[in-house]
């Protein structure tokens, strides 16, 4: 992980992961996150996360469709998500390896 960057909160990772699959509005984000993480974000939680991600330039709003406002992940958002998931994967591999050694 790049030095000086704070670790992404879990809900931000969920939102970025969902948006990595394409732009979505609030309701579609909640349903998508429910489907792949079995976590239901409330409206306040979701928009709290979106507010911070938008402030940090990791997501950007798209033109409104009727009364729905889609969001899209930015290039920086993809980079941050890639860093975070790579670090998580490294930790997961290390943990699994140690569990396997301990189990033998």
């Amino acid at each position, binding site marked *: 992980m790049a030095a000086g960057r704070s670790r992404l909160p879990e809900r931000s990772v969920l939102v970025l992961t969902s948006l990595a699959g394409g732009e979505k509005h*609030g309701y579609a984000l909640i349903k998508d996150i429910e489907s792949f993480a079995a976590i239901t974000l409330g*409206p*306040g939680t979701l*928009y709290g996360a979106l507010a*911070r991600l938008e402030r940090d330039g990791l997501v950007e709003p798209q033109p409104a469709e009727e009364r*729905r406002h889609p969001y899209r992940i930015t290039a920086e958002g993809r980079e941050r998500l890639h860093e975070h998931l790579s670090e998580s994967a490294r930790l997961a591999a290390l943990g699994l390896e140690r569990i396997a050694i301990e189990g033998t």
Partner: protein
Amino acid sequence: MSHRLLRFILALYPRGFRRRYGREVQDLVTDLEASGEHSRISLVGGLLVSAVAERLHAVRPHARLTIPTLVVVAALLGASVGLHWLGSGQRFPRASVGAGTYLPPTTKPSTRPGTAQAPTGQPPPLPTDAAAGRDVPPPPPPTPYMTDNEGSNWPWQ
């Protein structure tokens, strides 16, 4: 959820958040309610907790809303409401005095002719608990104010 209740809850959020995302949150709540998968209580509860989180974030951007933080916020709110209730009500007019502190009743000069009491300089008689038939224990002697060098054992004096 009624429009009025939702507007009230949104009013608890910081102004910047409300202006930028209030409309979207309102539309999302409408969609979630229409889907029938989210109960009104869970939506209201989630929105209230998020309002506290956003307020906290507005004060301390790197703070995270955890269960202990929520407990502390709830305790402070409860304490302030309780103190306000105790202080404003007539139920405990001397709420600021600690429990067990003896307070002599205030004596009003009698206005009836022939019953006026001359000031004697003596404390008023101790109240008697008539129902229990026993005297209220006398108050402890007052602690005298201590002057700078009076009765002090501090080594630097």
